[in-house]
C-alpha cells in the first residue's frame, strides 16, 4: 500500500475509473492541459485525450448543465468546480435539474454525475476561495453530498460516487490536499456512500465532524483526554444521506453531542445534526446538543489574524468540549 496525499488519492480514483470505464469523462476550467489549478486532474489529459478531459469556458452553469446532459445520454461526467465558491451560477442546474431528474421522470432517467468542488478556508484564500457550501446543497433531496477527510476515503468515496447512478456533490477541503497523507491501496476499492465512521472511540462526549474538522476534532480530543474527558469522534464522510445509526448510536452511548463545522453557524449543516440528535436521542442526552462553528460573518476574512479568528481550530473545539463535558 502506498502513502498518498489527499489530492493524489483523488487523482488516482479518477484515473482508475477512467481506465476501467470509457464513459467516465472529466470537464472543468483548466482541468485539461494544466491539470486543474490544484493539479487534481494532472496527467489525465495526457492519458485520455481531448475527448475525455475537457477544458471548459469559465461558466459553471454550463459545466454542470452540460454534465447533466452528458449523464442523461450515457456518460459519467466528473465536473470540477474550480473553487466551491464559484458553484452558485450552477445552483439552478444542480438543485432544479440534477437533483430532481429521477423524481421528475418517475425513475426513468437519472444523472450519474459527480461535481467535485474544493471548499474550505484557512488557506489564505479570502472571500472568494474559502467558502463552505454544504448547507446550501445538503438541503436538497435527490442530491448526495460527500466530504471525505482522509486520502483512503477520498479515493474510495470518489470511486463510489462515480459509480453512483445519481448526482453526487463531492467536497474536497483544500487544506487537506497536501497536508494529509495516508495509506491508499493501489487496487480498486470503494468506500460506501452514506456510512459514517468512528475515528476515535470514547465514552463521555461525541464530537461530530467532517472534512478538515475531523482532524481538528481528533486533535482536540487528544488535548482533553489528558484532562479525563474521553471523546468519541465521528467522521460523517457523507452528509446526505446521513448515517443516523452511527450518529445516534454514539450519542446514546455518550449522552453528549458537539457538532463541529467550519461554515458559519446559523442554519449550518450542523444545525440539522443537532436537530436530529435532539429529536431522536432526547432521552439519552445529558447536556444540550451544542455546536462549535464559524462566526456569522459574511465571508472568511483575508487578514490572517481575522482568518484565524474565523476558522475553527483544535483549541476552540477543545474549549467547547470542556464546556459541554462540564455541563
Amino acid at each position: 500500500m502506498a502513502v498518498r496525499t489527499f489530492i493524489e488519492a483523488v487523482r488516482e480514483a479518477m484515473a482508475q475509473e477512467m481506465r476501467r470505464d470509457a464513459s467516465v469523462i472529466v470537464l472543468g476550467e483548466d482541468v485539461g492541459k494544466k491539470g486543474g489549478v490544484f493539479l487534481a486532474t494532472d496527467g489525465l489529459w495526457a492519458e485520455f485525450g481531448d475527448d475525455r478531459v475537457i477544458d471548459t469556458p469559465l461558466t459553471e452553469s454550463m459545466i454542470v448543465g452540460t454534465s447533466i446532459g452528458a449523464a442523461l445520454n450515457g456518460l459519467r461526467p466528473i465536473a470540477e468546480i474550480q473553487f466551491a465558491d464559484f458553484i452558485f451560477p450552477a445552483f439552478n442546474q444542480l438543485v432544479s435539474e440534477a437533483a430532481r431528474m429521477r423524481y421528475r421522470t418517475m425513475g426513468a432517467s437519472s444523472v450519474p454525475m459527480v461535481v467535485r468542488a474544493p471548499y474550505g478556508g484557512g488557506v489564505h484564500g479570502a472571500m472568494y476561495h474559502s467558502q463552505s457550501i454544504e448547507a446550501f446543497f445538503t438541503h436538497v433531496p435527490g442530491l448526495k453530498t460527500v466530504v471525505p477527510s482522509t486520502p483512503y476515503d477520498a479515493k474510495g468515496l470518489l470511486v463510489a460516487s462515480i459509480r453512483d447512478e445519481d448526482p453526487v456533490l463531492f467536497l474536497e477541503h483544500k487544506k487537506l490536499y497536501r497536508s494529509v497523507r495516508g495509506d491508499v491501496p493501489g487496487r480498486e476499492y470503494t468506500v460506501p456512500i452514506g456510512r459514517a465512521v468512528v475515528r476515535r472511540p470514547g465514552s463521555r462526549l461525541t464530537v461530530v465532524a467532517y472534512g478538515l474538522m475531523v482532524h481538528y476534532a481528533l486533535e482536540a480530543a487528544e488535548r482533553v483526554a489528558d484532562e479525563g474527558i474521553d471523546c468519541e469522534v465521528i467522521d460523517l464522510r457523507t452528509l446526505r444521506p446521513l448515517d443516523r445509526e452511527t450518529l445516534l448510536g454514539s450519542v446514546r452511548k455518550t449522552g453528549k453531542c458537539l457538532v463541529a463545522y467550519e461554515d458559519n453557524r446559523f442554519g449550518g449543516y450542523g444545525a440539522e445534526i443537532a436537530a436530529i440528535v435532539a429529536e431522536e436521542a432526547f432521552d439519552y442526552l445529558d447536556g444540550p446538543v451544542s455546536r462549535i462553528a464559524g462566526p456569522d460573518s459574511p465571508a472568511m476574512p483575508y487578514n490572517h489574524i481575522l482568518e484565524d479568528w474565523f476558522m475553527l481550530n483544535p483549541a476552540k473545539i477543545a474549549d467547547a468540549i470542556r464546556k459541554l463535558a462540564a455541563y
Partner: protein
Amino acid sequence: MAKVTMPQLGESVAEGTIGRWLKQPGDSVAKYEPLLEVITDKVNAEVPSPFEGVLREILAPEGAVVANNAEIAIIDTADEAGSTPAAEVASMPAAADAREEAENGAPATPSVGTPAPAAAAPQTMVISTPPAATGDLDESGDPSARMTPAVRRLLREHGLEASQLVGTGGGGRITREDVLTRVEAIRTGAASPVATTSAAANGHAAASPAPASATPARTSGSARAATSAPSTQAGPGAGIAFPPGTDEVLVPMSQMRKGIAAQMTRALQAPHAYLQMEVDVTRLVALREREKRAYQANEGIGLSYVPFVVKASAEALKRNPTFNAHWTEQGLLAKRRINIGVAVAVDEGLIVPVVRDADQLSIHGLNLAITDLANRARANKLRLDDFGGGTFTVDNTGYLGTTLVMPIINVPEVGIVTMEAITKRPVVVSTPDGDVIAIRPVMNMVLGIDHRANDGASGAAMLRDIKAWLEGVGPETAIY
C-alpha cells in the same frame, strides 16, 4: 419589589434560624445566588435568591428564629433595580450588630474556653447545592428541575431518586455519570466514591462483629451500627474547661443539641411501651462470617449486621402495617412506603437519616445505602432529602456493648427497634437425642412502641416477625 420568604428546609422543619446574610442591603444579587444561610436543627443551608435584583431590606436579622414562609427580605427586582432608596440602607448597622452577636455564639459562653466542637464547625450539614436547598415553591429540594433527559431516564430505569445522588455537574446538576456510578456501585459496590467513603465506617462495624447486633430490615439505616467510633470520642462532656474560680459552666447548646432536646421533649408525649426478645443469631453470624471477607474484597466496604436488621424490620413492617405509620391527632396515619431511619451518632450528637423504600433493596443495597448515609452524616455532608419521611427506626447501640436499651421513639413514628450486643450465651437446644446445652450467639432486641398506636400483643407480633426473619437466615439468604 419582591419579598423573600423563609423556605421550608425539610419535611418536619417548621422554622429556621437566620445564620448569616451573605448579601447586605444595596448589594446586587443574581437569581439563585446564595443570599443567606439558614440554620435548622438538622442542616445549615444556603438559601439562593429567588429573584435577580438589589437587596433592599433585610427583615429578619441574623440569629432570628423565623417561621416558614415568613418574609425575611425585600429585593428590588432586576427591572426596577437602581431605585434603592438610600434611606433603606440605614438598616444595615442593626443587621450588622445582630450578625456580630450571632457570630459570637448564641447563648453566651464568653469566658469558657469551650472546646472547638461547639463553637467552630457547624454541627449541621452544609448543603452544597443552592438550588436544592431553595425551598422556593415546589422546587425546594427537588433536583429534578435540573435533570437532563438522560438522567431522568436512567433514574426511572434503575428505580432511583434524584435525592439519593450528589450532583457533580455544572451548578450541582446530577450528571449521567453520577447516576451510572451509583448504579454501578449498587451493582458491584466497588467503584463508587460514595462506597469508598463508607468503607471506613463499615469496616469498623465489621471489625467488631459481636457487638454490632441488629440486622435492620431493609432500609432503616441504623447508621449507628455502621457508625461506631465517633460517639465515644466526642461526647458532650469531652474537654470542658472550668475557668479558675468557677464551679460550673454552661455548655453552649449547638443547633443540633437544641433540635435533639426539642425532639426528645416531643417524644415524651408518646406513651412508650417496650417489648424485648432474644434472637438466636447463630445462622446470621455464620452467614456474615462466611461472606464478609469476599464481600469486603469485592465491594470495598464491610458487611455489617445493620442491613440484615433493617431488612428484617422492613419485612416485618409489611406484615404489621400499623407499625409503618405516624401518629397524628386524628389517629394512625399509615404509610405505604417503608422508609427506615437509622440512628447515627456524630460528633455533636445524633441524627437519623432515612433509607427510603428499604423493602425494595437487597442486603447489599441496604448496606450501601446505610454506609453512605453514615459516612455522609459524619462528614457533615447529609442533604435535607436524607431526612424526614421516616416510618420506622432502627437503633444500634449493640456495638457499644449495650444489652438492653430503652429507645425513644422518633415521633411521629410509632416504633423503634434496637440492636443490642451479640453475646455468646449457654442455651438449651433441643436435639433428636434430647436437650443439650450449647453456646450460641444471641442478640437482644427491644421494640419501643407508641402505645396510642399499638398494643403489646401487636408489638409482640411485630418483634416476633423481626426475630423470625433473622433466625431464618441461612446459607441461601441472598446478599445481592
